[in-house]
């Protein structure tokens, strides 16, 4: 009998363990670290005058139970973990707003998209979540909208008056998150736009006695010298002219300097859109010419040969190790102190000079495509059905007002101070506890939801500093403002274009063909190019373009 009892007990435990694995958990769980994005730098504060006014947040019913709100959002710093369970903001949100916040970090790109789609398929989307997409946020928002999984949010704007003033004040962004005249997304203010650009190792140029290139042909000559003439003078053949990785369609925007010189950056031809020539860039004869130039770089062996397989992290590790001398890079990823320090430690006398757009044979000098660089929150229909919209609005309003500093910078007096003019300062703050210290990254993971990216705020987030050899680094003035002064093509409309029906196959064919030509795996001839374009057509390129044209015309964005 005793034996039976023991066995039954063992079985019961086994059964419980198996079944408990099937259950769901409300714990904020996923802390997967992933590739850092361009926005992974610590941020700083706006001037006090620009700080949003505190509003009278509706008091939660005193005796009512706190409302549970699940929130999924990307991390501000993907290498750092989530806030600890005893994060002070959790307590304040519960005490002041009557909300039990369950915040989960979702991984970026495909992993995050898969996680959201899996939750959507199970009709188990969180109450409030950030849209994550590998292609276009609006496509994913449309999918959830078409499936009836997300709620309209128009009525929420009135529930958060201050946040609407500071965060939801751009009708274009609201339109981009709308369907059938109703808003289904809450667009965060765009981050810094046109923030990437072409940079070159000035010390390498000086060592070799070269001038900065102004055309693709000159770039090739400099890249050859950087690859073969020992620009760092260490006596070893350990450098490459150009560093890159694939980011975006085709060869990606890291090769904007080459394709921009022919006016054919990115997938769509927004350059000639006003002339009625809107379509895929590969239709433009200039694209063929740009590809010929690209192949010259490949054949010359001046691009880091690992570039098609590198991740963003690996690419960045290589320029920090002094392996490449020319690249297209985000201004903050290059110059923000925490990112620049490893490079500075390795090469204290080195420096990167920003370059203007290269001029092509036809005089084109496009720098890049200005895309709608903003993130969107959506509210699940399930949350709306459970009457949580008001609580969600209360939470978001608080993050933009009373909770702004706590969410963005931590605790005043501990993680930051305000100077007499109301500016954020780190004077008198223990560097290990400063809001931009590694230790403070987890408690400020939601800062992107609080920040509203005004010029004052951005300026404070990227301060000047001194490098190891005493040079003054001025990220905004020297790099960002220079990049932004170049010719960027307006590409906001790209978000509106619906994807092709067979998106995976279409994009694969498009990218694969471009890469094969660019890497020299397929010979580029007028015939092989025509064959490639015919293949695109067989996958519905013409219909894709017609659909895009129609959408943009209907939206009044094309003549």
């Amino acid at each position: 009998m005793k034996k039976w009892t023991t066995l039954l007990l063992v079985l019961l435990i086994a059964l419980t363990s198996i079944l408990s694995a099937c259950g769901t958990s409300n714990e904020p769980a996923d802390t997967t670290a992933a590739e850092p994005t361009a926005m992974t730098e610590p941020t700083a504060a706006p001037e006090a005058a620009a700080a949003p006014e505190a509003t009278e947040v509706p008091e939660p019913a005193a005796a009512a139970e706190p409302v549970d709100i699940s929130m999924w959002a990307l991390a501000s710093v993907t290498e750092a973990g989530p806030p600890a369970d005893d994060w002070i903001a959790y307590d304040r949100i519960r005490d002041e707003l009557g909300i039990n916040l369950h915040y989960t970090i979702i991984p970026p790109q495909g992993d995050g998209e898969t996680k959201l789609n899996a939750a959507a398929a199970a009709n188990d989307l969180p109450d409030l979540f950030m849209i994550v997409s590998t292609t276009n946020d609006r496509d994913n928002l449309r999918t959830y909208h078409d499936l009836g999984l997300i709620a309209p949010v128009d009525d929420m704007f009135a529930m958060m008056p201050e946040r609407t003033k500071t965060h939801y004040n751009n009708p274009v962004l609201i339109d981009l998150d709308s369907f059938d005249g109703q808003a289904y997304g809450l667009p965060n203010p765009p981050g810094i736009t046109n923030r990437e650009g072409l940079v070159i190792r000035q010390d390498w140029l000086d060592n070799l006695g070269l001038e900065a290139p102004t055309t693709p042909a000159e770039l090739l000559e400099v890249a050859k010298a950087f690859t073969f003439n020992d620009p760092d003078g260490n006596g070893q053949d350990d450098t490459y002219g150009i560093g890159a990785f694939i980011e975006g369609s085709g060869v990606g925007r890291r090769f904007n300097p080459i394709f921009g010189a022919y006016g054919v950056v990115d997938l769509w031809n927004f350059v000639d859109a006003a002339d009625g020539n809107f379509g895929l860039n590969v239709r433009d004869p200039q694209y063929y010419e740009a590809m010929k130039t690209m192949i010259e770089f490949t054949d010359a062996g001046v691009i880091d040969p690992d570039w098609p397989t590198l991740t963003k992290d690996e690419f960045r590790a290589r320029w920090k190790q002094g392996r490449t001398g020319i690249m297209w890079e985000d201004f903050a990823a290059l110059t923000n102190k925490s990112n620049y320090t490893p490079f500075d430690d390795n090469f204290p006398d080195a420096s990167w000079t920003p370059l203007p757009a290269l001029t092509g044979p036809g005089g084109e000098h496009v720098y890049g495509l200005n895309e709608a660089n903003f993130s969107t929150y959506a509210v699940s229909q399930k949350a709306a059905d459970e009457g949580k919209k008001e609580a969600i609005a209360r939470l978001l309003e608080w993050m933009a007002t009373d909770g702004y500093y706590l969410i963005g910078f931590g605790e005043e007096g501990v993680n930051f101070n305000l100077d007499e003019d109301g500016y954020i300062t780190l004077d008198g703050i223990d560097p290990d506890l400063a809001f931009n210290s590694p230790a403070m990254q987890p408690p400020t993971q939601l800062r992107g939801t609080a920040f509203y990216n005004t010029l004052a705020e951005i300026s404070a987030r990227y301060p000047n500093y001194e490098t190891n050899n005493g040079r003054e680094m001025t990220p905004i003035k020297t790099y960002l403002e220079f990049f932004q002064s170049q010719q960027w093509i307006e590409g906001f409309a790209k978000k509106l274009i619906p994807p092709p029906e067979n998106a995976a196959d279409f994009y694969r064919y498009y990218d694969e063909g471009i890469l094969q030509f660019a890497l020299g795996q397929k010979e580029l001839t007028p015939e092989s190019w025509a064959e490639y374009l015919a293949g695109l057509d067989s996958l519905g390129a013409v219909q894709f373009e017609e659909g895009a044209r129609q959408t943009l015309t209907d939206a009044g964005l094309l003549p």
Partner: protein
Amino acid sequence: MVAAGSRSTSEHSLGRRVRAVAHSMWRMRWMYLLMTPTLIYLLVFKYIPLWNAQIAFKDFKPLLGVTGSPWVGFEHFQTFVNSFYFSQLLTNTIFFSLAKLLLGLPVAIICALALHETVLRRYRTFVQTVIYLPHFLSWVIMFGVLLSILSPGDGLLNQIIERLGGQPIAFMTSPKYFRWVVVFSDIWKETGWSTILYLAALLAINPELYEAAAVDGANAIQRIWHISLPGIVPVIVLVTLLRMGHILEAGFNQIFVLYSVPVYSVGDILDTWVYRQGLLQFKFSLATAVGFFKGVIGLILILVANRVAKRVAQQGLF
């Protein structure tokens, strides 16, 4: 009367059989109890989810649920079969599966035989540990290791090629070499682990057979050929049959980490396509249809292979 008598006899016989089964089950009750957690696991995670496989024939809408979504027949199967890359995906998938099986199996068996024949016990333990350690590394780490070996820039292998006067080869991004990078890296990673199974089977062979062979003057090769190999044939057949059931699973984790756009033509497999077209494009019905397709093909292959194995090698799975 005859019919009644026959029925009575049949009922009697059935009752006797039921009693015999019950008796047998009671006799083996501890075994059945031991099996129960596994059976529950299979029921919960493998059989109950099968109910959801019906979305392969439906236009799945989360709000309508699995049962409420409208039927669309074989539409998703047609979409899949008519998709632009269907034949390429199938070819790549089968190539990887068969290459890993046909090249990986002999390597594992040879390793197991070699280890079994090794007289130095410490050396055997050391080698065994070293060769199955890569199994515990994730493919993400393996990618880093492979890149440091195969990189055309400063990879170890390419440095050797250059020292010998050759040109660096972009192993990871060249369609010509990528397939073999996948196959050999899989063999490198998994051979040690597979060896354990065959080594266990070898250790189960009665040592008296080896002693008798030694007395009869058999050398090491003869012992392997006439005792060791026949002794592990059932395990080889078992492993091969089980692998046939997974012929359309070519190792998603590995390919997903190792492949890149330039090698899609030789690296894209059914599972990576399902990831891009099914999960990222929110086409769960299509993804399920492909899973269903893989399952049916796997079942057919396992049945055919089992019959062939029984006929040829007098061994089978069931």
